């Protein structure tokens, strides 16, 4: 009713000025520019009062500023990064993912493959829940069952669906039977958190209020205030090394500028996702330091290599082309070569990214050492275009999200300019993620920016989701937004995904990577780098999966 322009319902006429919405004006000024001024003006004044800092350190307390809010404490309800990171503090998994997404012993100390569909796990002895009760096989089967059946919009079923049965033929041993051979079983197991069997039918609400959130993890829940903070303290019954900082408060501070200000004010000890414009400010300050680490998130452009006529590719006058130039390998190569990735990483990303030439940095499982960094060579790119029959280029619209990937809209703009230099006529269209996501999935675009977090730490995961020919029944190519299709790759990938021998499988995946990137199935841009700022006496290790975990903090 505030904006009701017509006569008010009471029959009174409010004066004209009561109807305006002056508050909204402020949004039109660039937030980022203003934040820079605010930070800048603060740098001029020098700081004096730091009582908060010393006190917190003395108490062994760690206050972390989180950028995204967890939506629940129920470890099986919703699979997304903030929820999973929070759950990792409280619950254990049979197998854990280490900082580089490599499988390490968790509640299972060792495992071996019996045959194609059977795995045997040694259970860690004498594990107790935070309420003192011992861990039993029952707890494990119940947890898997709950994760596989709970009603959810982002469930963990992808990881549990292939599990046929979990049995314990003798005490301390666990046998897991899968329906199909599952080389990544250990990774799937690292997603399913173990709760107490008696909370089989507990509601998510009971997890949120603490009654059911009993785990075997390094921390126990003290308090959870949705959208505000989570308080944790060290679990006295924990089987592993006690965390260095026994008292933890995860505070949700979604505004990047506020997160940084909270750190500078001494109200927080560590913040994730430091805004780029604030990094220099933190580095200059002797009380803090910046920790960086490469994430497993790769940023890339999808190419429409499927349609014979692509909707956003035209000739230079804007008339539709009768063929799709992106189907020509020479054109794809030319576009990839025309992009100066080093400049983007150094200037636009201010060094907080690593140039990519495949899904993961070389050395990670399933990558190929034969894939060389893509040279920046506008001359040759032009020659290739001419060779393909486009000496004068063509018209192209690049699409991208504007609130999802770090610097997403700027990356799109810069790439558009770089492609203009080799003769293309490029326009740019960016939109919020909520609008972009289903359009990209529906194969609407011709050339669009996307990213993928390779959380398994090996390449079968992105190959399955981004490269395999889309096939709903087999669960292939769900994020293949350019509809790339290569029967050779599909066949080889299917074999690799059935191969349980790690060394053999990685070799196969590495060969597939060769094919995919030589064929320019997509244009890799860079791997994102995590930027965390912390008090100088706190040592912190970042994780490839971008989880910020209190266990990874230590007092120097």
């Amino acid at each position, binding site marked *: *009713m*505030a904006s009701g322009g017509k006569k*008010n*319902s*009471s*029959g*009174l006429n409010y*004066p004209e000025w*009561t109807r305006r*919405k*002056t*508050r909204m004006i*402020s*949004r039109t*000024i660039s*937030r980022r520019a*203003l934040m820079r*001024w605010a930070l800048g*003006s603060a740098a001029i004044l020098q700081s*004096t*009062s730091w009582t*908060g800092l010393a006190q917190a350190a003395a108490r062994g307390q760690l206050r972390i500023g989180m950028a995204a*809010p967890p939506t*629940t404490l129920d470890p099986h309800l*919703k*699979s997304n990064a903030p929820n999973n990171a929070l759950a990792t503090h409280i619950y254990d998994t049979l197998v854990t993912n280490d900082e580089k997404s490599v499988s390490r012993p968790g509640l299972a100390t060792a495992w071996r493959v019996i045959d194609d569909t059977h795995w045997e796990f040694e259970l860690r002895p004498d594990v107790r829940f935070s309420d003192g009760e011992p861990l039993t096989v029952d707890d494990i089967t119940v947890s898997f069952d709950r994760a596989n059946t709970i*009603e*959810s*919009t*982002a*469930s963990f*079923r*992808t990881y549990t*669906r292939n599990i046929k049965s979990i049995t314990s033929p003798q005490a301390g041993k666990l046998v897991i039977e899968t329906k199909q051979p599952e080389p990544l079983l250990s990774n799937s197991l690292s997603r399913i958190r173990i709760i107490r069997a008696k909370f089989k039918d507990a509601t*998510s609400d009971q997890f949120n209020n603490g009654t059911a959130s009993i785990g075997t993890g390094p921390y126990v829940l003290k308090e959870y*205030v*949705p*959208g*505000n903070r989570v308080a944790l303290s060290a679990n006295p019954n924990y089987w592993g090394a006690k965390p260095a900082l026994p008292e933890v408060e995860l*505070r*949700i*501070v*979604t*505004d990047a*500028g*506020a997160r940084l*200000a*909270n750190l*500078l004010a001494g*109200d927080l000890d560590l913040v994730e996702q430091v805004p780029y414009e604030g990094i220099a400010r933190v580095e200059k300050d002797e009380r803090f330091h910046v920790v960086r680490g490469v994430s497993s998130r790769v940023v890339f452009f999808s190419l429409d290599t499927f349609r014979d006529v692509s909707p956003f590719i035209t000739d230079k006058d804007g008339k539709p082309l009768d063929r799709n130039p992106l189907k020509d390998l020479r054109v794809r190569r030319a576009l990839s070569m025309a992009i100066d990735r080093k400049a983007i990483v150094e200037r636009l990303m201010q060094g907080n990214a690593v140039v990519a030439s495949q899904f993961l940095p070389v050395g990670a499982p399933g990558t190929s050492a034969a894939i060389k960094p893509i040279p920046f060579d506008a001359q040759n790119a032009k020659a290739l275009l001419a060779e393909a029959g486009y000496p004068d280029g063509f018209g192209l619209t690049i699409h991208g999200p504007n609130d999802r990937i770090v610097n997403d809209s700027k990356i799109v703009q810069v790439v558009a300019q770089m492609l203009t230099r080799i003769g293309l006529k490029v326009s740019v269209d960016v939109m*919020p993620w*909520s*609008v972009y*996501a*289903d359009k990209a*999935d529906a194969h609407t675009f011709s050339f669009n920016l996307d990213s*993928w977090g390779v959380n398994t730490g090996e390449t079968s*995961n992105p190959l399955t989701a981004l490269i395999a020919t889309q096939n*709903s029944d087999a*669960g292939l190519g769900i994020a293949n937004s350019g509809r790339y299709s290569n029967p050779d790759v599909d066949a080889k990938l299917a074999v690799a995904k059935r191969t349980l021998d790690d060394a053999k499988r990685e070799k196969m995946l590495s060969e597939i990577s060769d094919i995919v990137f030589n064929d320019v199935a997509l244009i890799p841009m860079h791997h994102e780098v995590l930027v965390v700022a912390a008090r100088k006496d706190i040592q912190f290790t970042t994780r490839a999966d971008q989880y910020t975990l209190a266990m990874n903090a230590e007092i120097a």
Partner: protein
Amino acid sequence: MTAAIVRRLFQAAMVMFAMTVIVFIAVNVIGDPVDILISPDADQIERARVVQALGLDLPLWQQYLRFLQAALHGDLGQSYVYNEPALGVILQRLPATLELAVSAILIAIVVGVPLGLYAGLRPDGIVSRIIMTVSILGFSLPTFWVGLVLIMLFGVQLGWLPSGGRGQTAELFGVQWAFLTKDGLAHLILPSFNLALFDACLILRLTRAGVAEVLPLDYIKFARAKGLKETRVIGIHVSKNIMIPVVTIVGLEFGSIVAFSVVTESVFSWPGMGKLIIDSINVLDRPIITAYLMAIVAFFVIINLVVDLTYTALDPRVRLQGEGS
């Protein structure tokens, strides 16, 4: 009187109805919530299951009828994100926003009205000029920037006040409130001052304009001629007559503070509803968006009613339609 209230409630129901239709169509036009909500690792089988579970495979009109049917039974749906009843999620955050809004409006009135009176009574004084100049800054500076500067000054440089969060809370009527604890109050000061700044300046300028308009009128001269004390002239005769626009603005602004305090809430990481609605729009959490807007419509209707009732108290010439006729 009763007739007027009944008519209001009916109008509110109509507005809510229209709004739910708009939200349903708009969210459908923006995009598909499943693409945003689903875990990126999920495959097509999982995706199809989610679509079906949420009823998003039905035609839009059927989805809407389903919603309407449930809404008539008091169920506004489960949030896609939180898997909890939408209204519950909103009400959980209401107290935080409410205490922020109330304290901001109180600050705005306590600061704005007296300063405005002063500036109106001595329009040429040097102090009045300073007040008026500062007030221009007050409503032209962007809220979030002032917020960041406040944090930088009082949180970072001086270290007097906490730089964000809600602090400790205490329970009253089964609800957690920050203003009941010392720590919570300290956390409340900066955000409520930040939120109050704009409205304080608005109220200040309105009051001053009102005073300037009323002072030369005959009845003020008459009151003075009667020999009434200056305090009574200003306190009763002037004040009462300049209050109508101020009450209107306070009512409307209170509504918009509650509904749109998102900027201040995110700068100060205040866990209120403003943040919730923006997040929900970003992930197309339709049940939350719908329930939130319905709640806000109800809220504005109530505020408007209170404002109108206040008018009748302030100015005997004002009658609510349907009253006494």
